[in-house]
């Protein structure tokens, strides 16, 4: 337990992943769902960096990938926030449950 190994990080990241999923399912605020997505992406990054750290091979592909994930997350957040604002302008709320005109 006291020697920190790969597994510690993986389990931590799995826990954060599941928290993210839970947030995405239960939050009615669109921004809240985005926060859930960020949590999941964060857990992905923890995975990448931990794997990178505990690999025997040269190179740091994991870290680079994590860098790209951060960039993509930022880009996605930008679009998503703009879209949420657009929704707010249209239905005057950010509650995603109110946006169910399209169904069936």
């Amino acid at each position, binding site marked *: 337990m006291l*020697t920190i190994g790969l597994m510690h990080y993986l389990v931590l990241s799995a826990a954060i992943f*599941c928290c993210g999923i839970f947030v995405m399912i239960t939050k009615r605020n669109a921004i809240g769902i985005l926060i859930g997505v960020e949590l999941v992406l964060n857990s992905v990054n923890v995975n990448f960096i931990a794997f990178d750290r505990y690999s025997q091979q040269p190179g740091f592909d994991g870290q680079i990938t994590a860098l790209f994930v951060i960039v993509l997350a930022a880009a996605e957040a930008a679009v998503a926030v703009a879209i949420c604002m657009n929704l707010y302008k249209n239905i005057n709320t950010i509650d995603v449950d109110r946006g169910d005109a399209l169904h069936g």
Partner: protein
Amino acid sequence: MLVRRWTSRRFLLTASAAVIVLSATVAFGQESADLKGVPRAVQGGLLEALLFYLFGGTALVAALGVCVSKSVVRMATWLFGTLGAVAVLYLLLGAFFLSAIQLIVYAGGTLVLLVFGVMLTSKSPWVRFECSKVEMAAGGGIAITLFTGLFLMLTRATWPASAATANGATVKDFGKELLTTYLVPFEVASVVLLVVMIAAAYLARQER
């Protein structure tokens, strides 16, 4: 509820302090200037375990805090806690550059963006939409099932290497990799950012 009592403001203060302390530890303990590995003082010892549990726990608690928060502002604050704690974990893992990027881009950029979004999209930032108990239960069930599954899967698996290696990378290394091996994704990401900027600007601007 522990999490409730541990308000976000107090948490935020503690976390910031911890980050500063840890950064100082790392900075003082380091052997070489190029930051190519985790300092010996930290590596593999009790200190690493301590720091992992401290900050890993913080990240997890903050993630749970996101889960149980009712208001979106609180959620964002808790998320900041996770991001910060994870940044510290990056330090432990020897990813110094990433740690900085995490704080600058993620915590500094993305999170602020989200908070802006909150501010711009509600009449009051403290407005709450609560979902029903059944839905909570369904979400919790799925999350717990998923976690159990992942836990079993990850612990039963055999991983190629479990010993840590000094795999740290300098900013210089990053630059070199980004412009050679990862040139294409790098360039594509820049185009994506341009396009996304236009998309966001279009969607967010007032119609004339």
